């Protein structure tokens, strides 16, 4: 089979998808223009597009909100997930702490984190701190649980091998336990960053001062549905970018879990030791 023959069905599939998507948009547009669709729920695509133009280019009023929200997302994610990985490692490595914490972890895992958001505001007060605290909370658990289980599930044979080589606890941690847990920790980070996006919206829905969540509330209250939709689709794009970005990061960091990563790093390591491998010809 040639490459061209391989590409043809993929192209046709893409074309089919595009055709279906455009038909849906066109049907939506026609339905909205004809008045069949309630403009409150389904503003015309052309109106949404016009709103995009207005809020991004003409008024440029979405930018500061976007900046605030993304800043909170990354700050809360960074602090929450670092705490999660750190505490997960500590708890996972300490059998005694683990035994005592186990029931609490289970209870906390079963509690929807968002439910605690109003309590956090009551405790920390309004402002950026409480928003970051809410995001930290929703970002904490996936990395915590994943790191804990990654650290606990160490292969017994590998552990014995390290011991018989005279490895210290620190060497076992650094050369075996942590690298072994990297793929599962990365999976936790992916979940956490996605949760951070929901977390910032909840925080901004409660404190409607600024941010993309507050903006959606304002537009909705003013019945400016096309602009509210523009904000929502913006979030769709950010969510997708986060998903893709984390996927790429995951594949690079845990390179040994995918063919392409193995090939890339293998070549790099071979190049770094060129003199060694070259020795066998000379």
């Amino acid at each position: 089979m040639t490459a061209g023959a391989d590409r043809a069905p993929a192209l046709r599939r893409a074309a089919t998808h595009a055709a279906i998507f455009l038909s849906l948009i066109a049907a939506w547009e026609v339905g909205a223009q004809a008045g069949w669709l309630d403009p409150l729920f389904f503003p015309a695509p052309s109106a949404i597009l016009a709103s995009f133009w207005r809020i991004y280019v003409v008024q440029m009023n979405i930018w500061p909100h976007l900046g605030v929200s993304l800043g909170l997302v990354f700050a809360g994610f960074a602090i929450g997930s670092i705490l999660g990985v750190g505490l997960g490692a500590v708890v996972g490595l300490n059998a005694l702490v683990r035994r005592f914490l186990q029931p609490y972890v289970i209870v906390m895992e079963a509690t929807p984190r968002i439910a605690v958001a109003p309590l956090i505001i009551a405790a920390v007060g309004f402002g950026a701190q409480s928003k970051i605290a809410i995001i930290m909370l929703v970002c904490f658990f996936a990395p915590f649980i994943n790191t804990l289980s990654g650290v606990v599930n160490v292969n017994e044979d590998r552990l014995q091998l390290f011991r018989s080589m005279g490895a210290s606890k620190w060497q076992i941690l650094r050369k075996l336990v942590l690298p072994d847990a990297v793929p599962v920790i990365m999976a936790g980070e992916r979940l956490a960053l996605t949760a951070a996006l929901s977390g910032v919206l909840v925080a901004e829905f409660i404190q409607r001062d600024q941010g993309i969540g507050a903006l959606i509330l304002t537009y909705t209250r003013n019945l400016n549905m096309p602009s509210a939709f523009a904000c929502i689709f913006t979030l769709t794009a950010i969510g997708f970018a986060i998903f893709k970005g984390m996927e790429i990061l995951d594949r690079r960091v845990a390179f040994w879990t995918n063919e392409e990563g193995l090939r890339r790093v293998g070549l790099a390591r071979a190049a770094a030791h060129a003199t060694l491998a070259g020795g066998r010809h000379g």
Partner: protein
Amino acid sequence: MTRTAETLRTANAPAPIISARDVGKIFGGGSVVALQGASFDVAQGSFVSLVGPSGCGKSTLLRLIAGLIERTSGSLSVHGRDITGPHTDVGLMFQKATLLDWRTALENVLLPTEIARTPTAEDKRRAFDLLKMVGLGDFAFSFPSQLSGGMQQRVALARLLQTGADVLLLDEPFGALDEFTRERLNVELMRIVAEVRATTVFVTHNIVEAIFLADQVVVMSPRPGRISAIIDVPFERPRTLSLQTSVEFNRIVEEVRTTLGEH
């Protein structure tokens, strides 16, 4: 041919590398007697096979020698030193290669050195030479998941040799491989341990393999795990696979079978 541990010691014999006297191991507060009254000596440079059915305490005995578990009774020493915990006088190899997936073959072989000190260029060269010795010179920069099961065990063998330990403990190292690969690796193993002059304890449940490789076969039986006989294998080295068809070889196979109670 069958001897007891007591008759192993003769007045002018050199001190054994591994010496076990009445070694016992009980697991789970007395519920499982994994090993009872095991006594044997392993001489410098010799190859000893432990053979017996599953659950007769072969792995337990190996882990006791490595100091990975504590014996419940008896005395056990390597190089004349009493075993009280993990020690670097022995190198281990398991049925699963237990390579680190995020390290190349070369980096896996270097691991024991890295644990002991910062590897020098000379250490790296030695690791590379060991990979060549096990036939993987062209795969130094491949990762474990890019290698076949047999190749992974070759890397594990190279890593074992990189430890520099002169006592090798192998727990069914080729047990998960197909018959063909296993036979080939067995022949290579014999060549390599002779080359590095290692003392080897090799666990298997394959009688032919046990005899083919060994100077002595320690036959074990289960419930409770114990040594039922130690049988000498007097054949010259180097040995070839054709040895397995000889009358004398098959006489020893019969002897081991009889001891194991299989007829």
